[in-house]
């Protein structure tokens, strides 16, 4: 492709983009691209990386082959540290969550989010309180009343990560004490709840939808300012949009979401970053993506540039406060 046609195509693409993104995507990958999923196979981060890979390959948004590599060691630290070490290499794309900035706050890991180049926050995953199907608690109110005893066990993925932060927020706002038991993944927590070994967990929709359909557990409320929009029925009678918000039920945590973040290693050029912003924007416009968002009941947000930075700053301020109260901050 000569540079003239390339330029024309790019200006076309640029027109389609929002004004926030400067059109300088004059760079394109020259080698196979590695998508680094900062989670083990089958986790939410792994699935988004593979979904994006599938969409890009299907629509040929990038003509280089893409491989997904799982680097979930150390709760994702392996992937981020790898991204840091790959500084300047625009052929590595790192898929993660908010732990890119949360983990360095609470663990002695060898990276910080500032070592990476932010590309986008592609979706927001919701959180819900789930209890066992046959549990006596029908609402958040019932649940919190039971929690007053101090004997409730809450399962979650990892320690000092989003699930535990949320648990500690619930404790604080409702003035209760909950025993938090960390597991390797949300899926594991869901199975433990099905077996009655724990009383509740705060899984994302996709981690527990199978269990809900199967009648082993059900959600009592969602941490969102308004009810979820997906009106499909999951069980015979209920669907995502039937779940009340936690605020409705008197648990005043209006929103709590987990962003799915995409990064490049540090020290890449703005052109290179812009290329991937552009690609991700195209991915977001496909029906496959809409389908993925709907199936996993996430909220479609697409934060880039300053918006993304602002989101990070706000989240850091918020989590920092909780981490400080809990004495989690690394010295």
């Amino acid at each position, binding site marked *: 492709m000569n540079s003239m046609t390339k330029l024309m195509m790019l200006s076309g693409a640029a027109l389609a983009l929002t004004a926030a993104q400067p059109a300088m995507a004059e760079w394109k990958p020259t080698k196979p691209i590695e998508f680094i999923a900062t989670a*083990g*196979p*089958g*986790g939410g981060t*792994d*699935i988004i990386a*593979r*979904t994006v*890979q*599938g969409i890009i*390959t*299907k629509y040929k948004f990038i003509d280089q082959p*893409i*491989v*997904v*590599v*799982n*680097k979930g*060691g*150390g*709760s994702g*630290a*392996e992937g981020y*540290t790898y991204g840091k*070490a790959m500084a300047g290499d625009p052929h590595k794309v790192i898929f993660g969550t908010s732990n890119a900035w949360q983990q360095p706050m609470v*663990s*002695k*890991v*060898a990276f910080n989010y500032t070592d990476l180049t932010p590309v986008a926050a592609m979706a927001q995953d919701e959180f819900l309180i789930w209890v066992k199907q046959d549990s006596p608690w029908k609402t958040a109110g019932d649940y919190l009343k039971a929690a007053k005893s101090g004997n409730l*066990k809450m399962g979650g993925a*990892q*320690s*000092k*990560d989003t699930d535990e932060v949320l648990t500690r927020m619930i404790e604080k706002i409702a003035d209760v004490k909950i*025993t*938090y*038991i*960390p*597991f*390797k993944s949300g*899926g*594991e927590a*869901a*199975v*433990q709840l*099905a*077996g*009655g*070994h*724990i009383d509740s967990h705060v899984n994302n929709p*996709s981690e527990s*939808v*199978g*269990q809900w*359909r*199967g*009648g*082993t557990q059900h959600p009592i409320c969602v941490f969102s300012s308004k009810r979820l929009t997906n009106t499909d029925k999951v069980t015979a009678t209920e669907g995502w949009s039937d779940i009340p918000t936690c605020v409705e039920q008197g648990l005043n945590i209006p929103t709590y979401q987990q962003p799915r973040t995409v990064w490049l290693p540090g020290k890449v050029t703005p052109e290179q970053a812009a290329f991937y912003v552009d690609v991700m924007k195209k991915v977001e416009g496909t029906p496959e993506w809409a389908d993925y968002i709907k*199936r996993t009941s996430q909220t479609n947000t697409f934060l880039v540039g300053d918006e993304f930075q602002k989101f990070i700053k706000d989240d850091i301020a918020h989590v920092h406060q909780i981490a400080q109260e809990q004495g*989690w901050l690394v010295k």
Partner: protein
Amino acid sequence: MESNIESLMHGFGIAITMQHILLMMIGVLLGILVGVLPGLGAPNGVSLLLPLTFGMQPVSAIILLSSMYWGALFGGSVTSILFNIPGEPSSVATTFDGYPMARDGRPSTALATAFGSAAFGALVGVVLITLVASWVAQFALRFGPPEYFAVYFLAFASFVGMGGTPPIKTLVALSIGFAIAAIGIDTVSGSVRLTFGVPELVKGVDFVVAVMGLFGIGELLLAVEEEMHAKAVSSKIDWREVLRTIAGLPRYGWTLLRSAAIGCWMGITPGGPTAASFMSYGIAKRFAKKGSRPFGTGVPEGIVAPEAADHSAGTSALLPMLSLGIPGSATAAVMMGGLMIWGLNPGPMLFVDQRDFVWGLIASMYVSNIVAVVLVLLTVPVFAALMRIPFFIIAPLIFIICTVGAYSVSNSYLDVVLMFGFGIIGYLFKKAAYPLAPLVLAIVIGDKAEDAFRQAMLMSKGSLGIFFSSPLVTCLILGGFAFLVVPQLMKLVRPRRARPGLEATEV
């Protein structure tokens, strides 16, 4: 049960088409390749094929991926037997007797024994899935943290309690394994442990890196010491040897059945194929007749036991994935990711919602395991021929394969250096008669056992009583103690005369 058989027949109708048989063959052959090459494991292969499956019917896609998984399980045993390099974590225990037998000039017999018992194990696993799927899924739900810990404890007890090496050396080896398993981020507290100032160690030490060093490189250094080594392998391809071995397998019927049962148990419960193969080997060793050739010198039972258990565990590990959405192995985890991308939600309703998919898969397991065992037996002479390459040529090639394998585990040069270090340790440990097997087992399930213990302690607020709180967990724990104590009591009651000439070199 009647309806399960009916569903299975329905499944066969879906699975047996020309296109699917072809997919099975492709899957199996690619699987053998990734299985044989250390470092490239079944999860690699499956995750690389995954993008190709997006355009397929889910049932065709899962047939391709699961066939690859079977192929890799078979292939993993090849390098274990021929070169003492476990290509897959679960084939470590196969090295204990497979490698001595191959060195003794019988690589075809060793490989055929391994493949035959593996196929048997896999079939038992599939039959289990067919007949009692829903019951098994319910049973698996009864496992909480205390039960997890108890299962790991049982696996350790059944394997570690065996005598043969100085107990303090066993203790040191076991503890080193536990310490290595603890390197990296701790699940329960989220803090970074034992990285000794090397930031990259936060990812932990991969099992494959450790095993390739300890077994592969360590053995290479030992082998070169004794000049050379493998008895000449006859150059003619002896198909009759392969067939005779397969035909002779029923002689080990009891070992086969027991090992397959252990495998199924560990596949359904959280133990997984690696722990299953170790446990099965340990138990087979205990049940060995007095006066027969000791384990570790190339006895067929020492190959039959870990292989049958490995494959029945690998197969039954797919059941919790389908019915509960918990993957029983790393490969199962990648496949589960695939399920979600194909738009299926693993979980209790999958069997009802996606009847064609589930039963097509289960039926394909029967067919693709037969395809796999036929294909893999055809490769026996090819692999056995590798044993005829002179040592001075094969040694550097093995070394390169191990290096590349260690590197490709997570694209890290540090892993290569670590593997080399483990090689030196492996050599020294062999020379000084430290057992390697407890070390390896501790690396595989040490951190899981620790997590489970601490999760249980959180649940019980520090009371050990939780390990006796239900009949299930009590039985498991008592079983573990029995494995530890009974052999010692036996020794007291009936002091065994030392048989210096016959004692196997402890692995």
